[in-house]
């Protein structure tokens, strides 16, 4: 899922300075699952915003709402008009939601309430870890299912760098070297031969370096 975290309160207070009426808009997609922008977090941010404004002696009306998703146009439909009633809509969806509101809802001022951070897995309650970089050119069939693009600090394609010591990455002793993990996994699966193949220089265009990505499926188009 997409992982996000609430922006620092001072940043949110700064971007809403002088505003009298805002809508904190949550999303029940990924950000709800990672406890960053669902119903509960909407309530917390709204209350904190009111409290922060109270301390500075300024009043603000904060309304709360949460959509099923903010990345599908049908859910944003009501916001096209209702969003104009607010000085701003603070979206607690990932950056996709913020962008999509900006695109779809002309006349609505949308602000990000969270920082969108990575695609991650939920290791345990309250702990998420990056597992995919959305690079658009998956090599997991060659690497035992472990991603060298997302999980290697240098996104190396052909084995570890000299900073891999004792199975750990040089950037932090708490970070496992994914190439060590790939080696161990392939050895266990008896697919060591994969490591003998030299992966050519990666084409980063599918990763977005060729401009914003777009996918079209003709069979689904209306």
């Amino acid at each position, binding site marked *: 899922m997409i992982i996000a975290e609430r922006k*620092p*309160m*001072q940043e949110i*207070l700064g971007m809403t300075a002088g505003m009298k009426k805002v809508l904190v808009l949550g999303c029940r997609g990924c950000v709800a699952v990672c406890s960053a922008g669902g119903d*509960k977090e909407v*309530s*917390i941010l709204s*209350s*904190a915003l*009111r*409290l*922060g404004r*109270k*301390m500075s*002696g300024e009043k603000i009306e904060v309304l709360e709402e949460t959509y099923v998703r903010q990345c599908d146009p049908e859910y944003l439909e009501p916001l096209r008009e209702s969003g104009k009633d607010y000085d701003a809509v603070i979206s607690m969806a990932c950056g996709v939601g913020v962008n999509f509101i900006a695109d779809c809802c002309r006349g609505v001022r949308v602000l990000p309430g969270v920082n969108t951070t990575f695609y991650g897995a939920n290791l345990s309650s309250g702990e998420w870890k990056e597992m995919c970089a959305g690079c658009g050119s998956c090599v997991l069939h060659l690497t035992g299912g472990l991603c060298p693009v997302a999980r290697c600090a240098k996104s190396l394609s052909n084995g570890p760098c000299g900073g891999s010591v004792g199975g750990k990455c040089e950037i932090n002793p708490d970070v496992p070297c994914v190439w060590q993990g790939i080696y161990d996994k392939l050895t266990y699966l008896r697919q060591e031969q994969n490591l003998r193949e030299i992966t050519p220089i990666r084409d980063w265009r599918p990763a977005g370096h060729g401009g914003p990505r777009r996918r079209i499926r003709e069979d689904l188009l209306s």
Partner: protein
Amino acid sequence: MVAEMSISDPKIIAFCCNYTASVDADALKAAGLVSENFELVRLPCTGRLEVVQILDALDNGAEAVFVTGCLVDECHNLTGSRRASKRVQYVKGILEELDIDPGRVEMFFAGRGETEPVVEAAREMKGRVTGMEPIHK
């Protein structure tokens, strides 16, 4: 300047579980153990307490909020008071972000049926916020 703005009887809200708060706030007030502005919210378990309830309490009139749950290793629901403690810590973080003294919220632990720790906590919280610039001016 701050002293001029402080209030003598700040509103204190306590969230207590059924097991740690055996008396109600009216009885404590009648006995003169807590001030008139003390409010006690009883929960089945402090583990049920949500972060937003503490923030809303501060937003809606309280100058300080505290939570009293079971002793950590004696929680009736095993981990309820521990969860509450983490949520109190989370609220403290938000208050710091807002430049509000995190000492306005606190977690206390008490044995079953003990009233004294709740009374002591109320006094301590009142002492902490007396002299602070009030949230609700």
